């Protein structure tokens, strides 16, 4: 790329980044969106999205990603494939260091780097990734036809994906550390009505057992009783960790979890730097609020640029 300076750089092409890209392109800002994989982000891990307005019949995560990308591209989104390794946000001109190619600079930056599934961090888990331990039910469910799998978690993702897994697996056991689910009521109703779905309450997974593949999951309940559940696979869906390895966390005043706090207009502690989507420090991580924050962030960037000039 010849050009290395932009008014606005958007980091990440999930729902927040793609919406920011759409708004930036329509505002005719001199912008660039950088994505290290494919457009969509974590939406690509979701089998079905039933709570994004405008799609009354629901839509697959895959299709929604494609539509969001196509929408931004219709307005001449300027995007590139690249991996940002680090950045310097101490000067008014922000500098991004990429894995390949020259450094890129910008006046404003919108961080939409997103999040990734949180691991259990128990013995055997890491060794058996791809051999029965999975963080993406949408990706791996078809490998468990007529098998017994466990899902660890109790939030929306865990409950929705447990239901999805029952389309393939003969039995799905959901393991949750509390005695009730956190997932939204309609997902709970569906799950409780599903004859293939069983629940183990008040229990945590302590060890994944297996040599060439997952053979069993060791559990401990709140009374301290230990048990072993024989399963062919374990899906770990216990929330997310921030994709923040490229960010100056002290400068951005990251919270204890490594997420980036912002004001209501998505402005971070660094002037001209906004954060939108799952990387933001917040309680609710939904496609709809990620998209909304992406739009807000571009308006905040425009305002910052106006005040500069």
């Amino acid at each position: 790329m010849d050009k290395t300076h932009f008014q606005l750089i958007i980091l990440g092409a999930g729902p927040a980044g793609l919406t920011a890209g759409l708004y930036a392109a329509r505002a005719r800002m001199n912008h660039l969106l950088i994505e290290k994989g494919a457009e969509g982000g974590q939406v690509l891990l979701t089998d079905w999205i039933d709570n994004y307005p405008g799609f009354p019949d629901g839509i697959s995560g895959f299709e929604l990603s494609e539509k969001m990308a196509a929408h931004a591209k219709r307005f001449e989104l300027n995007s590139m494939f690249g991996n940002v390794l680090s950045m310097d946000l101490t000067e008014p001109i922000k500098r991004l260091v990429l894995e390949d190619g020259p450094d890129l600079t910008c006046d404003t930056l919108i961080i939409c780097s997103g999040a990734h599934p949180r691991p259990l961090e128990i013995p055997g888990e890491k060794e058996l990734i791809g051999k029965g331990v999975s963080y993406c039910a949408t990706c791996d469910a078809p490998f468990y036809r007529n098998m017994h799998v466990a899902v660890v978690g109790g939030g929306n993702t865990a409950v929705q994906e447990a239901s999805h897994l029952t389309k393939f697996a003969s039995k799905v056991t959901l393991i949750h550390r509390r005695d009730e689910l956190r997932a939204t009521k309609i997902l709970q109703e569906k799950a409780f009505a599903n004859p293939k779905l069983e629940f183990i309450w008040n229990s945590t997974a302590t060890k994944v057992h297996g040599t060439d593949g997952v053979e069993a999951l060791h559990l401990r309940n709140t009374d301290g009783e230990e048990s072993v559940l024989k399963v062919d696979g374990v899906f770990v869906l216990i929330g997310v960790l921030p994709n923040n390895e490229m960010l100056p966390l002290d400068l951005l005043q990251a919270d204890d979890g490594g997420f980036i706090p912002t004001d209501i207009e998505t402005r971070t502690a660094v002037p001209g730097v906004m954060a939108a989507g799952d990387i933001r420090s917040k309680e609710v991580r939904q496609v709809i609020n990620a998209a909304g924050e992406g739009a807000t962030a571009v308006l905040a960037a425009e305002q910052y640029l106006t005040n500069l000039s």
Partner: protein
Amino acid sequence: MASDKINDVSDADFASITGSDTPCLVDFWAPWCGPCKAIGPVVEALADEYAGKVTIVKMNVDDNPETPGKFGIRAIPTLILFKSGEKVDQVTGAVGKAQLIELIEKAL
């Protein structure tokens, strides 16, 4: 979706392609797999960078049930590196370019 620029390998020609002295990286994917799509551009870039040194191909696990079963694949994307028909190592998930380079270099 894995990249269109990467050649497909099937159960039928798998042995002949991975049996070569030239190291071969196989990207196991399926059309319904989001992270497989996410890793596509990285695999494509590597195919360019290692052209002539490493053969990079992709296998659709929906169309080719035999090979993924043989290698115990239970998650995608999984990328397995072969040399002279032997498995050298593998990675699972939409890992970064650096991790894939680390994998590929094991056969060079």
